[in-house]
């Protein structure tokens, strides 16, 4: 299978601190990859390198065969790498529909349009209604996002990311700070996007149940280095991973 994302020997230094050290990985088209690791393992830094928040100190990143190492985050969004944020980033006072609609209109190139023809307006509305339906918010589409439950806000954010017509969906701790019910809701949504709609997804995640339940492959980071890379069964059986998580005594 061809690689949707390929990371080659990427490192990131902040002064003397080496946050990410010589990490390489390939994510195939249609794959759901989870990136895990103990606290301080460099997961978030690594994620920010992929999404273009930081430029790597060395190494290269390829998206669908194209070298994106020097592209800014908004440029990467434009070519099909959409992300969600650890802290939900939405337009809180606007409705679910409006949130998704803004993303859809900007993607369609209408950001500067002072008006839309009836035909284009209808097409946008259909797109928006479809996305809102897919993330399970159809009955809440007119509510302001800021007053929805945490899980619903996350679902709205995912709908916004989908409105960008991504070929790669990057989710930064999608279930962070969520209760049992909401974690279940979001995990179900991610699974549906992956299995039924074959999105390529990379997610950074803390919740091990979510990771082992969803992921095709798991990459484990520890102290900025890639410790292991494999299927959930391989990772579960990996001694190095167990040591990183539970300490040498285990």
């Amino acid at each position: 299978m061809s690689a949707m994302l390929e990371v080659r020997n990427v490192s990131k230094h902040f002064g003397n601190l080496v946050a990410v050290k010589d990490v390489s990985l390939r994510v195939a088209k249609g794959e759901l990859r989870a990136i895990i690791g103990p606290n301080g393992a460099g997961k978030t830094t690594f994620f920010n390198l992929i999404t273009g928040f930081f430029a790597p100190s060395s190494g290269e990143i390829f998206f669908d065969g194209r070298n994106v190492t020097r592209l800014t985050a908004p440029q990467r969004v434009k070519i099909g790498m959409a992300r969600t944020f650890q802290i939900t980033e939405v337009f809180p006072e606007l409705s679910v529909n409006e949130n998704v609609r803004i993303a859809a209109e900007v993607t369609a190139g209408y950001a500067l349009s002072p008006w839309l023809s009836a035909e284009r307006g209808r097409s946008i509305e259909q797109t928006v209604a479809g996305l809102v339906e897919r993330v399970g918010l159809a009955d809440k589409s007119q509510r302001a996002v800021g007053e929805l439950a945490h899980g619903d806000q996350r679902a709205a954010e995912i709908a916004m990311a989908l409105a960008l017509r991504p070929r790669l969906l990057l989710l930064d701790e999608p279930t962070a700070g969520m209760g049992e019910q909401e974690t279940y809701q979001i995990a179900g949504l991610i699974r549906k996007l992956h299995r039924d709609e074959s999105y390529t997804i990379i997610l950074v995640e803390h919740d091990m149940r979510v990771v082992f339940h969803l992921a095709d492959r798991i990459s484990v980071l520890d102290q900025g280095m890639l410790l292991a890379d494999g299927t959930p069964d391989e990772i579960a059986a990996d001694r190095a991973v167990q040591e990183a998580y539970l300490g040498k005594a285990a």
Partner: protein
Amino acid sequence: MRPGGDTTAALRGAAERRWAVLAGIWVVLIAAPFWLPLVHGYTSLGSRILVLGLAAMSVNFLIGFTGVVSFGHAAYFGLGVYGAGMMLRYVTASTPLALVAGILLGGGAGVVVGAMICRSRGIYFAMITIAFEQIFYYIAYKWDSVTGGYDGLRGFQRAPIHFGLFTLDIKHSDLAFYYFVLVVFAIVAGVMGFLLRSPFGRTLLAIRENERRARFLGIAVDLHIWLSFSISAFCIGAAGALYAMVNNFSDPSSLYFDLSGDLVIMAVMGGIRSFWGPLLGAAIFEVLQDYISSRTVNWLFFIGLVFVIVVMFFPRGLLGMFQRRRAA
């Protein structure tokens, strides 16, 4: 969970309510010359309220719908006042040309200043808007031979408008002038309302709500803020041109910092999340000023008192209470 049909019906209901409110507002405005005398008002007060309301709505295009605070918008209002005044005084006694001159002078200055400041945010943005306003104020104040300096520009009057078959005598008839102001108000407010319902308008709301998110959706935030600033300056320039005709006088205080503050107060009092709120704020401000200033020179104290009371009991402004009912 509600079935989809309910949502559609609720949507239609909301749309119908919106049209009903809009129709109500226009009936009130069109009939104003007839009901104003019944409440001890008068037609030219109505014209003043429309003009300052339009100015406050223009400021609010930026504050309430783009999330960028300008404390220097009197600059573009005042340039509208002087643009119209100088056209009438020095060039030709044509009301339409005076209007165009005011719009172009106010809006043009907004385009230039906006291009220079659209990268700043928050308090820095607000401070720079004040700085530019002071520059324009001192030019008007010092350039005696053109602007009339401290005394302002006098010696012009709004001119009757000729439509070929008939003439609208806005010079002698307060009633005719009111309707002229209302038509200009309708066009300018209509442009702002139209833009806010467009994809471009929604990007402004997005910037207000979460600039970081807007940027990562691919919205060129600085460019959009510049456009919003410019649009707002053109609109307030139109209000300024009308103001010159209300008074037949271009007053340097129309460029001054105090007026910028008054416009923000009007917007906040009426409700910055509401399109029509600033008009209501302007009405309250102007009526209070008209009523109280004939009794005491300390009228500003009472306006301040009312402002504090409104902000305490209606933190989202008087019309802010009716916004976002969809939340329920």
